[in-house]
C-alpha cells in the first residue's frame, strides 16, 4: 500500500447509544489492519427509521444533514447492513432534486461500505485473528443479504478464523422479526418470528450468533437473554481482531456467566 487507507466511521445510532463496544471493536480492528480511522462527531442516525415508516420528506432532511458530514471522507464504513443500504441505495433518490447535494449523495453512496464488505472487498482481507474460541453461527441480516446482495464476506472471515467453527444456521436468510418500528407496531408477530430464529440458533449448538446489523442483534439478544439462554448475539466486529490488535472481548451477560455457553471466550 502506497498510502494508508483512510476511513470515516458512521457508527449508526444503535451502536453509538446501545452497543458502543461494537464501535470500539471496529476501531481496533481497522487500525490493526493499517487503516487510519476518523469519526465525524456531528453524526446522529441515517434516518432509516423515518424512511421505512413512510416519512420520506423527514428522511430526506436527515440525509441532507448526513451527506455533508462525510463529504471529505475517502471511505465511509458502517457496522450495519441496513444503514449502509439506506445511504447507498436510498440517499441518492431522496436527494435527487437537490442540485448540489444530489451529486454528493451519489458520490457518498459509492464510497460507503458495510463493514464486512469493506474488509473483504475493499481491503482484500480474508484472514484475521480472534480471541474467541468455539462454535459460532451466522445470521444474514435482510438488508445486507437482499438489499446489498452480500452473503459471503462475513462467512469468509468467520470460516477463516482459527479456533472458531462456523456452522450454518438453518433458515439463516430468514428475517429475525426486527424490522425497526415493526418490532413495536406488531410486537406479538415480531416476537413470534424471533421465536423461530432462536429455535434455529439453538439447534446449531453454537455459543454465539453473529450478525452485521445492530437491529438484528438487539432483537436476537433481547429474545435470547429473556429466555435465559447462554447463547450470545454478537456483532462481527466484536468477534474479529487483527494481528497486533487487541479487540475488547465481549463480556457475557451476568445471568449467562454461570451458564454452559457452547463457545467459551478466552483472553487473548
Amino acid at each position, binding site marked *: 500500500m502506497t498510502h494508508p487507507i483512510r476511513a470515516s466511521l458512521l457508527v449508526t445510532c444503535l451502536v453509538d447509544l446501545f452497543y458502543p463496544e461494537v464501535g470500539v471493536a471496529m476501531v481496533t480492528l481497522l487500525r490493526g489492519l493499517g487503516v487510519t480511522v476518523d469519526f465525524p462527531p456531528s453524526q446522529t442516525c441515517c434516518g432509516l427509521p*423515518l424512511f421505512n415508516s413512510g416519512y420520506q420528506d423527514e428522511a430526506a432532511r436527515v440525509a441532507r444533514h448526513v451527506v455533508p458530514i462525510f463529504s471529505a471522507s475517502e471511505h465511509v464504513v458502517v457496522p450495519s447492513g441496513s444503514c449502509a443500504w439506506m445511504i447507498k441505495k436510498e440517499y441518492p433518490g431522496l436527494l435527487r432534486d437537490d442540485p448540489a447535494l444530489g451529486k454528493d449523495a451519489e458520490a457518498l453512496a459509492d464510497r460507503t461500505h458495510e463493514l464486512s464488505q469493506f474488509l473483504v472487498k475493499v481491503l482484500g482481507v480474508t484472514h484475521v485473528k480472534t480471541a474467541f474460541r468455539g462454535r459460532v453461527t451466522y445470521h444474514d441480516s435482510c438488508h445486507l443479504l437482499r438489499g446489498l446482495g452480500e452473503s459471503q464476506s462475513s462467512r469468509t472471515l468467520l470460516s477463516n478464523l482459527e479456533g472458531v467453527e462456523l456452522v450454518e444456521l438453518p433458515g439463516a436468510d430468514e428475517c429475525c422479526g426486527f424490522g425497526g418500528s415493526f418490532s413495536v407496531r406488531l410486537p406479538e408477530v415480531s416476537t413470534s418470528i424471533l421465536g423461530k430464529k432462536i429455535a434455529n440458533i439453538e439447534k446449531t449448538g453454537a455459543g454465539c450468533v453473529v450478525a452485521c446489523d445492530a437491529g438484528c442483534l438487539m432483537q436476537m439478544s433481547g429474545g435470547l437473554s429473556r429466555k435465559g439462554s447462554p447463547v450470545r448475539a454478537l456483532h462481527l466486529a466484536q468477534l474479529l481482531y487483527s494481528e497486533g490488535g487487541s479487540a475488547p472481548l465481549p463480556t457475557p451477560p451476568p445471568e449467562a456467566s454461570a451458564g454452559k455457553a457452547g463457545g467459551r471466550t478466552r483472553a487473548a
Partner: protein
Amino acid sequence: MSNQASTKPFAERAAVALRDTFLQEALTIATTKFIGLRKDSFAGFPQGEALRDRARAIKEATLQRLDDYLERLADNVERLGGHVHWATTGDEARETILRLCRDRRVKMAVKSKSMATEEIELNDALEQAGVVPVETDLGEYIIQLAHEKPSHIIAPAIHKTKGQVADLFSREVGQRLPADPEVLTAVARKELRQKFLQADMGITGANFAVADTGTIVLVTNEGNGRMVTSLPRIHVAVMGIEKVIPSMTDLMVFLAILARSATGQKLSVYTTLVRGPRQAREVEGPEEFHLILMDNGRSRQIAGELREALYCLRCGACLNVCPVYRQIGGHAYGHTYPGPIGILLTAMLKGDRAVKELAHASSLCGACHEVCPVRIDIPRMLIELRHRLDRERIAPLAERLVFKTFRRLLTSPALFRLSVALGRVAQRPFVRNGRLRSLPLVFAKWTRTRDLPPVATQTFTQRWKGLR
C-alpha cells in the same frame, strides 16, 4: 363470513392467529414445503432468471398499451362466437353474472378456483339469487363447506388440518370418515362428479388471456377446471383486465415460471386453453362463452405508484416466504388477497384507508421481492404506501408528530445528545443486571417479550475521545 370480519383491529386478528396452534402447525409445514419446492425447481432451471426478467418486461409493456390489447382480446373472443362484458366495478361484474343466471334459468353453477370471483364475493351473491354455487377445486370445496374464505392465493385451505377436513366431509355425507387424504379426496371427487353434470353454468377466472388468439388460459392441478369449462352449457370467465398478455409466445414465458414459483412444478398438471364456445366442428364445450373484463379499480393504478402490483401472477410465492404471513396466515389480513402482495392489492381495490394498519404488517425483509416471478418490489411499494398514509393524514396524528419530532432530533446533534442524556437518566429505575426487562408506555411493547440494552454509560461518541 366468520373469518373475514375485519371489524377487529388487525393486531388483534393477528394475535388470535398466533394463539391457534393448529394454524401455526399447518402454516409452518405448508409454507416450508412450498419454499423448498420452489427453490429446488429454480435451482435446476438456469434460464429461469432471464425468463423472470422477460416476464416482467412483457407485463410492463402490456400495461402501457392495455386498452389496445383488451380490444384485440375482445375482438378475437367475439370472432370465436363468445360474448364480452366490460365491468368497471366489482358490482357490475357480479350483476352481469346474475343477469346471465336469471336470463338462462341457471340453478347451479360449478366453479373453478378464481380469486377474481372471491374479490367480488360472487358466491354470496349467487346464493342470494337462488343459484347454488359449487366450488370444485378441492381446497375451495373444503372452505366452502366450512363457510370460510381462502387463506392463501393458491392453497385456499392451507390453514386446515386433515382432521378438520375429515370432520367437515363427515358432516356433509352423513357418515364418519377417516382423516385420510386419499379417502377424503375420493369422497369429494364422487360428490363433485354429480355437480359437474347437473350444473348449468361453469364459472372460472383466468390466469392469462391471450389477445392475439382470444384464448383464456387456466392453470390448475386437479382437472376440475377442464370439467367446469366443458361440461355445463354456459362458461363464464371473470378476469381482471391486467391479465391480458399479447401473444402465445408470451404465454410460454409465463407458463415456464408460474408453476415453478407457486408449487415448484415445471408445469401444473393441467393447462387449459379455452377459445370461445363449442365450434361447429367440435364435439364438446359449452354452447355459450362469456368473458367478463373487470376493472374494479385497476386502471386508475396504471400510472400510479402501485402499478407494479398489476404485474402479479397470483402464484402465492410471496406469501410462503413472508415471515408475517407464515406466522398469522391469510385470514388475519381480513381481505380477499392476503400476504405482502395482498396489502398492495387491497390498497388498490379498496383505497389506502383500508390498509392503514396492514401497510405496517411487514418487516420489509425483502424475501417477497426476491421470489416474485415478475420481481415486483413489494417492500418499496409498502414504504410508498406508508408515505401516502402520512401525506393523506390517514396515519394517526400522534404517530406523525413523533416521527416529525424525531426528525428534529436527528438533524440537530446537540438536541440528539441532550435527549440521549435524558434517556440515560430516565432509564435508571428500570435497569436490572445491565438489562431493561420491563419498561412503561410504548416501550413495554418491546420489553413485554424481549430484553433491551440500556443506553450505554458512555456512548461511542463519548468513548471516541479516548480512542483518538
